[in-house]
């Protein structure tokens, strides 16, 4: 099946700039996948295939790379991907309570997405912010030193943003 997606012209410029930074084309794969993620919103099979064709890398290799790492935004992820750090320093300061609170508020367990597609909840390994435990990453942003009230507030704010975006 022919690809029906492609980078917008601005992204294509960034891709071409990336190629100038490395001695091999393949070295630009990880950053190019970031461009795809941001341009297309997620990395599903069509997006991976597009990158593979663009970079002349076998699709299976691209799939292998995307699935080796945990931080690419895979197909089916909610608009807001809430990733709660669950490794030791955060666990010692209540990360499990943060997860339970989010589960309670959103009605989803770790690994699940709300039916409306707004939220995905994940438990993830150390995010390198142990001094501000418990903490989570929502899309690109860190939310640190969380109390359960902070969690409630964050969810309300994100919910408003998601619903606002939908109506507007």
């Amino acid at each position: 099946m022919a690809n029906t997606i492609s980078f917008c012209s601005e992204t294509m410029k960034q891709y071409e700039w990336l190629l100038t930074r490395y001695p091999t084309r393949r070295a630009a794969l990880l950053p190019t996948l970031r461009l795809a993620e941001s341009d297309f919103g997620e990395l599903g099979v069509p997006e991976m295939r597009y990158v593979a064709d663009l970079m002349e890398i076998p699709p299976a290799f691209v799939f292998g790379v995307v699935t080796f790492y945990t931080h690419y935004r895979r197909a089916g992820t909610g608009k807001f991907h809430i990733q709660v750090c669950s490794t030791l320093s955060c666990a010692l300061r209540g990360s499990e309570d943060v997860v339970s609170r989010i589960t309670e508020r959103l009605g989803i367990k770790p690994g699940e997405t709300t039916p409306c597609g707004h939220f995905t909840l994940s438990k993830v390994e150390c995010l390198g912010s142990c001094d501000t435990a418990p903490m989570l990453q929502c899309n690109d942003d860190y939310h640190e030193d969380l109390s359960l009230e902070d969690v409630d507030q964050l969810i309300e704010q994100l919910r408003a943003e998601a619903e606002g975006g939908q109506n507007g």
Partner: protein
Amino acid sequence: MTFRKILTQHIAEDDCHTLSFYQRNGGYSQAQKSLKEDQPDDLIELVKAANLRGRGGAGFPTGVKWSFVPKSSDKPKYLVVNADESEPGTFKDRVIMEKNPHLLLEGILICCKAVNIQTAYIYIRGEFVFATQRLQQAIDEAYEAGILGNDCLGSGLSIDVTVHRGAGAYICGEETGMLTSLEGDRGQPKLKPPFPAIEGVFGCPTVVNNVETLANLPYILEIGAEAYCAIGPEKSPGPKLFCVSGHVENPGTFELPMGIPLRKLIDEHAGGVWKGRKLKAVIPGGSSAHVLTADECDVAMDIESLTAAGTMLGSAGIIVMDDSTCMVDALVNLMRFYHHESCGQCTPCREGTGWLEKIVHRIAHGDGRMEDLDLVLDVCDRMVGKTICALADAAAFPAQSFVTKFQDDFVAAIQNGGSPAWKKRHPSAVGGTASHG
């Protein structure tokens, strides 16, 4: 000599990350001078004499590492800055990258001069989006100001720096895994030799240095090797970033001389054990280090002292646990981490980390058997030193030390049908969970 902070001195100030702030405070003056006047070999000798030890975890002497790069090679040479910072309990390089990115860039310039390198990559973990933005801003400013690019700082040298963002994988903090990842592949480590200094990224000689290591270079040039060696213990001197997390009142990153007593660090700098509780255990060097009991905490935080105490300084990620901590639950958490992060290419690690997680999990969940304690140690013996990289060792060290030093917690969980926290959540459970039997 009074100790002066050099990595984090100005981080409370608003525009500390900008080029103008950095230059107002003397920034880039060492690189400016060095790029024009110093001979590469003299720089290597200076860093050797200063006894700068790598701040990433292994503590290898930086100048010695540089000297391994062949001078006669006609291949390009690379510097890859390890900014993957993924060892649980570690959050120090993030401070430098977010608050003092030009210090890192100045260190990169000095290293490039010493080893005749024209291309540097900063491999930063994918989750650090803000730090990536800060670094990119700093790099853009530096190119604009003629500090990077062609004719750096008017020296005639050409040095390019590129930020390369990872995508979520602990193993990419291991140097060969990181280089494989930088080449666009899955971040699986490679056997050494060849060492990166001979054959690293893109098959070329490569220096791999940690962020904090490079950030020490301008100061070494400023004060000289002798004065630098006078900070802290002679064999591993210098200012050091210590990360304290877990059950303390005031967690954070503290810049102090190498060799500070661990108790002083916890009690005076990190505000002591929280909620007035007692200390139970401390992991002193990132989660891969052997755990210390409260009685073992009268130790100096430097490479030699911690090695002598049977553990390691590692990444200086100090995780404090109070007397309410169940060491079985804490170990389940760490074993899940290592099992999740094993890259899967070596059988002893792929299978071993899985077995360790399962065994410790069943102890915590009421299905443990007394012979499991020996089984954990036996599995560890089959992992340590038997794999391409050190991840298997990193998983085995906490397993061995938790089980032997806190045996009472494990025995109690086996005898009482699970860890206290698990029993609280499952009050009606008599035996254990069938799924983990």
